[in-house]
């Protein structure tokens, strides 16, 4: 294939409008959409559900289905308008020059065809090569997407490989004939976090490895940050902002983008002192969009007569190269002031212990009805859904239970709520053992004191009954209301509590939005003076802007009623924001538990470490260690021997991990880790997530003057009058973000000093003066990696601190060591490894 001209955009969308035709008439799905994708570039499209982002992808593929049509504009691929192409030309382009990766890998592979066939046919039909040749190429490609044992995968049916592997196969299929453009539509949404991390890692390498341009569609800003160069933010069928990732993330000029960032829980947000700010109102329906700005009715900066006059167009942001925004008033908005404000909320005080879980076990008996099992007498065996769960929760405390699918968190919830009984151990609520009492044997008060909030807003309410009757039923069941009038009265009170209008009692669930349904779900859970509420991923199915409102509500009610909340989630960002204590589970066992701050900073359990590194964070100032776990989640039906995590653990010591279940180590303050690593080794871990407000940043700022990332230290920055900093193109994120220290301009760094983090406060105060900083030597710097334990990452950090030579380190005194050690959060490792001695030896050479 001819080398593409580097100056022609691979794809150019000009004023594209797309409509669907329904009974109600034409519904504009996407209006006036513009985008340019240059060769090798990765462009992200981000937006909430129903904003039209997937429609754009399908329009680019020219696959609109029966009732959809591109009604205006042009979509140019390599300079040619695709709308003028014949069906035959399109067929030629699809799959060979533009290809697509879909949300659900299982559904997008043909269940009755071997993977071999599905891969080969792409090459056979597009390049006309022989079967053997195609097979060879397919195997190479499977190898390139890092699938172990490609030959086995080739000979499998889709259902015989795991979800993560399926998605890699789909990616391989898309890349087979070296397309110029790859469309990815939420490619990791259906996967578990740690599996997702691996796929994202792969996607990041694609453009480098194959020179492919990418369009990455996602609702997750964090993923876009990790994978893309540019980003388009869509709202209600329109792109509202377009620009480089750093422009949009750090200097957004559209109120909706601002609102999005304000409503996602980034590290540093705090539910008491700096709560998330939801976007008020809700997304307008396509046929009910307002005149002028679609975001107008929800915008804090809305101005009558300006924003609602006529359809808005994208305009270039002055002084920002390539940054466009669809807002009439962006120049009149004080962008620094628009950031979330600190609220004088104070942390809650916990009461007595309400819930104790002691050695709780839940086994399921599985019957194997195969002939072999019958003969060998192993017809039934036990699946350990929960093994020795051991933790407590106090009044008004939020305990998060974190884990991926199959970790046993749902089973645990079932036992708590009496839908199942525990196999062993105790669950004590208010001094009463409830692990053996099913819900039907519990008194109404007991049932009411332990309730649940469910995950899926669209399923949480029975569509056949009105909201009022459903809440009323609960009130009657719990004995809270004796008669109809009382039930109605209390229903109204509950609706008030969740900030819904009282006339919602008459409505049916289908007349409510997702967020509203979830509010009713919360009202229902609190109907019976609940002491403990189990919340099973209560916000994960909601759009981010609604998420913030629901989490806020939940926090408020919980604080007001001093309810204990067990918050089940896989989303570590939300957990960090909401939880006081965290329990990390893997395959039915607790791997680590402790206060939230302890969990999110070293020492970690290796699994927690991997989980933390896998969570995408939508903040350019954050640096993360990337740990990609090998292999797939083992099935809970057939867990590995020894430590459950041993099959994927990057820190596995050896045979002991395979043979023995590790003992639980108590690291003090209720922080417990179940791992074979010694306490010293655990304490020696580096933080996975590095925030600019850490002390490190100060040194980094001195060494590397650059541009600031703001979102984090917002509270203190908010005081500074909003001034635009000139845009500086962001350095292309390295494929593997090592611990690259971020750049911050001195003036802002200075302003951030008072915003000392909680984390800082906890550690012993270190001297303000670091070791003497030297300029980077003219000649070659020494290879500090020769000192044991110094990797490329640490080397960079040391360089950042001004250390380039062995003889600098050789001159360190005790106090210097202490300072550096603390800077790297090593906890004495420099001393133990005796860097100084090593440096001396190396310096002599």
């Amino acid at each position: 294939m001819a080398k593409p001209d580097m100056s022609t955009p691979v794809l150019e969308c000009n004023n594209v409008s797309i409509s669907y035709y329904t009974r109600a008439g034409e519904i504009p799905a996407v209006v006036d959409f513009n985008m340019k994708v240059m060769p090798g570039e990765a462009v992200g499209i981000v937006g909430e559900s129903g904003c039209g982002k997937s429609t754009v992808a399908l329009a680019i593929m020219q696959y609109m289905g029966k009732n959809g049509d591109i009604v205006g504009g042009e979509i140019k691929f390599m300079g040619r308008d695709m709308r003028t192409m014949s069906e035959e030309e399109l067929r030629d382009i699809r799959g060979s020059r533009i290809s697509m990766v879909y949300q659900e890998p299982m559904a997008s592979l043909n269940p009755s065809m071997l993977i071999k066939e599905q891969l080969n046919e792409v090459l056979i039909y597009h390049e006309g090569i022989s079967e053997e040749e195609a097979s060879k190429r397919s195997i190479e490609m499977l190898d390139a997407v890092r699938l172990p044992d490609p030959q086995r995968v080739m000979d499998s049916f889709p259902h015989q490989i795991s979800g993560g592997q399926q998605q890699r196969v789909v990616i391989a299929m898309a890349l087979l004939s070296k397309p110029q453009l790859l469309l990815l539509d939420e490619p990791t949404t259906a996967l578990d976090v740690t599996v997702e991390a691996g796929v994202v890692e792969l996607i990041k390498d694609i453009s480098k490895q194959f020179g492919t341009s990418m369009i990455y569609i996602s609702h997750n800003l964090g993923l876009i940050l990790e994978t893309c160069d540019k980003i388009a933010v869509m709202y209600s069928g329109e792109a509202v902002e377009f620009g480089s990732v750093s422009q949009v993330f750090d200097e957004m000029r559209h109120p909706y983008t601002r609102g999005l960032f304000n409503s996602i829980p980034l590290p540093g947000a705090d539910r008491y002192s700096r709560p998330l700010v939801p976007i008020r109102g809700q997304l307008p329906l396509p046929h009910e969009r307002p005149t002028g700005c679609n975001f107008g009715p929800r915008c804090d900066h809305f101005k009558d007569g300006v924003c609602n006059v006529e359809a808005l167009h994208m305009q270039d942001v002055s002084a920002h190269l390539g940054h466009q925004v669809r807002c009439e008033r962006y120049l009149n908005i004080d962008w620094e002031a628009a950031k979330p404000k600190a609220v004088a909320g104070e942390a809650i005080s916990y009461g007595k212990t309400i819930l104790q879980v002691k050695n709780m076990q839940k086994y399921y008996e599985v019957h194997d009805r195969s002939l072999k099992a019958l003969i060998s007498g192993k017809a039934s065996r036990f699946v350990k859904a929960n093994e020795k769960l051991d933790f407590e929760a106090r009044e008004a405390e939020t305990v998060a239970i974190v884990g991926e699918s199959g970790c046993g968190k749902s089973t645990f919830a079932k036992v708590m709520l009496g839908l199942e009984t525990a196999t062993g151990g105790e669950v004590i609520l208010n001094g009463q053992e409830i692990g053996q009492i099913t819900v039907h044997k519990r008194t109404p008060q007991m049932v009411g004191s332990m309730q649940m909030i469910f995950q899926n807003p669209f399923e949480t309410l029975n569509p056949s009954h009105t909201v009022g009757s459903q809440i009323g039923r609960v009130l009657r069941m719990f004995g809270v209301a004796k008669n109809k009038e009382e039930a109605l009265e209390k229903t109204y009170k509950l609706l008030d509590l969740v900030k819904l209008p009282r006339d919602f009692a008459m409505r049916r669930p289908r007349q409510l939005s997702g967020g509203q349904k979830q509010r009713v779900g919360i009202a229902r859970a609190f109907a019976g003076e609940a002491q403990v509420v189990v919340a099973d991923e209560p916000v994960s199915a909601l759009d981010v802007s609604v998420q913030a409102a629901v989490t806020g509500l939940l926090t408020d009610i919980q604080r007001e009623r001093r309810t204990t909340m067990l918050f089940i989630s896989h989303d570590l960002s939300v957990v960090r924001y909401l939880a006081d204590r965290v329990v990390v589970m893997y395959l039915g066992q607790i791997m680590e538990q402790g206060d939230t701050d302890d969990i999110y900073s070293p020492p970690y359990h290796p699994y927690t470490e991997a989980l933390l590194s896998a969570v995408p964070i939508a903040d350019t100032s954050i640096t993360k260690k990337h740990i990609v776990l090998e292999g797939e989640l083992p099935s809970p039906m057939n867990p590995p021997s020894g430590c459950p995590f041993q099959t994927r653990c990057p820190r596995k010591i050896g045979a002991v991990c395979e043979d023995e279940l590790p003992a639980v180590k108590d690291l003090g303050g209720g922080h417990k880790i179940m791992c074979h690593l010694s306490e010293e080794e655990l304490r020696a871990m580096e933080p996975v997530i590095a925030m600019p407000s850490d002390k490190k940043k100060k040194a980094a700022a001195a060494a590397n003057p650059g541009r600031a990332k703001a979102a984090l230290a917002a509270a203190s920055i908010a005081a500074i009058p909003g001034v635009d900093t000139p845009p500086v193109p962001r350095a292309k994120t390295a494929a593997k973000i090592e611990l690259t220290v971020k750049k911050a301009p001195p003036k802002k760094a200075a302003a951030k000093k008072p915003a000392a983090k909680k984390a800082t406060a906890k550690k012993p105060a270190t001297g303000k003066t670091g070791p003497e900083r030297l300029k980077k030597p003219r000649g070659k710097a020494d290879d500090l990696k020769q000192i044991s334990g110094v990797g490329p990452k640490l080397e960079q950090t040391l360089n950042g601190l001004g250390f380039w030579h062995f003889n600098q380190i050789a001159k360190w005194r005790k106090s210097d060591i202490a300072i550096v050690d603390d800077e790297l959060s090593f906890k004495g490792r420099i001393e133990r490894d005796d860097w100084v001695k090593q440096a001396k030896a190396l310096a002599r050479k």
Partner: protein
Amino acid sequence: MTDTTAEQTNTPDSNSGLKKFLSSFSLLRESWVGMIGLFLVVFWVSIAIFVDLLPLQDPLAQTRGAINLPMLTEDKKGIMHWMGTDDRGRDLLARLLHGSRVVLFWSTLATIVAYSVGMLMGVTAGYRGGWWDEIISFMGNVLLSFPQIVLLLVILTAFGPNSNVGVWMNSTLGLGKTVVSGALIIVAITFSTAPQVARIVRGIVLDLKTRDYIAAAEVRGEGPLWIMLVELLPNARGPLIVDACLRLGYVIITIALLGFLSLGLPPPDPDWGKMISDGRQWGYNGLNIMLWPALAISSLVLGLNLLADGLREISLRD
């Protein structure tokens, strides 16, 4: 699509049940297939209800010398027989229209009984699972292994009006012949239809019972009966209404078929199936007698099937 519809939060739902019922028919207007079906069904149902008010001959009155008259002929008394007369000189139009009442009455009753039993079986099997499911499903499988007619023949010969059971019902319980036959037909149809209904309901329930609102009901300590009847079944009504329309059509066919096989309701009440088999003995001369009921059954069943189709089309839309 679910989420967009859910976003619609316009007017509060103050509709009465009747209003909603009517509005679902107004939706039907958009499906011409459904409208034709509705028209046919309404036509036959109103005839069945108001047949007594129509200026018709007595369906049981036999006119001597007016046997097997072709359509549009007058008999000696000068009475117009629009459709002609049958082999006993009875007015065919009157018999046909009165027959609709017989058919619709028994088939609706049978469908209701079969449906109730089937729903109960299905929801129990689906929700309770385990042994309940094993036993109910096995029973269903046993009954479904009979081709429907074989089952009907077996039940009606073994327990029909002339068997011990039939005689006992007739003499000891003092039930009329028609009632005995009707009851037996209903039992037979229930045996052959309920397992099919149960199978459908079970499938729907298996899907519905994983919903969070069922878990919510369990968590607040609702008993299985409440969950099955109040939480589950109302949500299965969409597909079940469509299926009930189809099922009623099948039951009408079955009842007519039993009449045709002389296993149905006892004479002399008009019965479309019996009319066909009566006409069959007369060869060409009986054609007139056979054709009208054949068309009547077909149009009624067609109406139900088209209506079901229209309803399904609409339910798929939103």
